[in-house]
């Protein structure tokens, strides 16, 4: 979201900075006048900060798939440096996704709260903002539906609860053809690796942000029809399961 303003900041620096000191001083003076408490703050040349951009502006914008594939490939390469094994690599990918999940959560709620046009002005029309998820099921539906649509433009393919009585805290979200793995070819000796660990990290961030302590991992479960089918195993912590019981008894939905 904030990439363009940052870009223009750099532009203004490079424009004003070339003839050594003169114009640069002037610029800082100007800024010091408008924002007295922070003389060092640099404002882009068009004087627009991230606070001036509307959050719904890129709501329906599509991102180039090629540039995403390139960037993600670089992220995997970066994570692969100095790793000890596949688990370590997946852990790093997971950590890269985690902060993204926390952010997306806020953005998702902001976008579903504000009715597209009258978001800034009197928002009295947007009568009922969506509720924060309190129970596991609502949270998983949020991930399966809205979050997946925000990220990939479609819902996830399946949402299941573990059938085993030993692991009531395990849930599975299935994606038949994860976008992140489309352009990744895993070498044979690393066949256990699933780069969707990045998406698992996003899910973990979303759950943690909502107050559900979780571990999420991505697993390959290829089928004849979907060779890159991936299952995200969501394991909730004991504290969450305990709270879930209390909430169920008190009838919170």
């Amino acid at each position: 979201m904030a990439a363009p303003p940052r870009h223009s900041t750099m532009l203004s620096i490079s424009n004003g900075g070339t003839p050594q000191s003169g114009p640069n001083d002037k610029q800082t003076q100007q800024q010091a006048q408008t924002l007295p408490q922070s003389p060092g703050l640099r404002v882009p040349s068009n004087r627009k900060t991230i606070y001036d951009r509307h959050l719904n502006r890129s709501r329906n914008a599509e991102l180039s798939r090629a540039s995403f594939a390139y960037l993600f490939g670089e992220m995997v390469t970066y994570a692969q440096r100095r790793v000890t094994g596949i688990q370590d690599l997946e852990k790093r990918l997971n950590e890269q996704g985690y902060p993204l999940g926390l952010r997306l959560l806020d953005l998702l709620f902001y976008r579903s709260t504000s009715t597209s046009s009258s978001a800034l002005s009197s928002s009295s029309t947007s009568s009922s903002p969506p509720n924060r998820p309190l129970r596991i099921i609502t949270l998983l539906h949020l991930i399966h539906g809205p979050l997946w649509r925000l990220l990939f433009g479609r819902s996830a393919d399946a949402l299941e609860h573990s059938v085993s009585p030993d692991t009531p805290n395990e849930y599975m979200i299935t994606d038949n053809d994860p976008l992140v793995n489309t352009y990744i070819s895993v070498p044979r000796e690393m066949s256990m690796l699933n780069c969707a660990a990045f998406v698992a990290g996003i899910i973990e961030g979303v759950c943690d942000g909502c107050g559900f302590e979780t571990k999420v991992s991505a697993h390959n479960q290829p089928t004849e029809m979907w060779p890159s089918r991936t299952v995200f195993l969501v394991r909730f912590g004991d504290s969450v399961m305990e709270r879930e019981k209390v909430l169920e008894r008190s009838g919170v939905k």
Partner: protein
Amino acid sequence: MSYYFTILSPTDTPLFNIAFGTSKGGGDGIARFRFPETAQYMNQFIIHSSLDILEEAQWTNGAMYLKHIDTYPPAAAYISAFLTPSGARFLLLHQPPHLPSSTSTGSGLGSSSLLGSAGSTTRASSSSVAANPTSPQTEEAVRQFMNEVYENYVKTAMSPFYKQGMEIKSPVFRTRVTAAGKKWL
């Protein structure tokens, strides 16, 4: 009416603080708390003590704006809370001005030792928002204020240079919050 607004991270670290006064009904937007200038930490004490109640309310009410959750009668301080989905808490302490005739709040009696300099700066306020901290109008005004701050908070959080739990230092953010306070409170 005087306000003290705080953003707390999910791990209770203060991310942002601001004190301001009402701009409605001829207010000049300057905070005049009932504590003497040297006791401003009282605001922080009162706000942080409401966290327990907030954490209880958070799991019974799924709304983001939890309305007025706590009152601290000795200082006639009312606390409203807003919870972002990612766990940051916005807490607003509001304190109606101390009226010498003291009809609006009978609870201000026990705080006579705390009043200090406040007596000289009281001013009668006719605005509905300022006069009654628990009225529906106040709740609505606070809700609008919180929503506007939330929008700016999301913008902050979306910045790639911001990590959750970092202090919000942006002067633009501060200006925006001040403007929201002027507009709604």
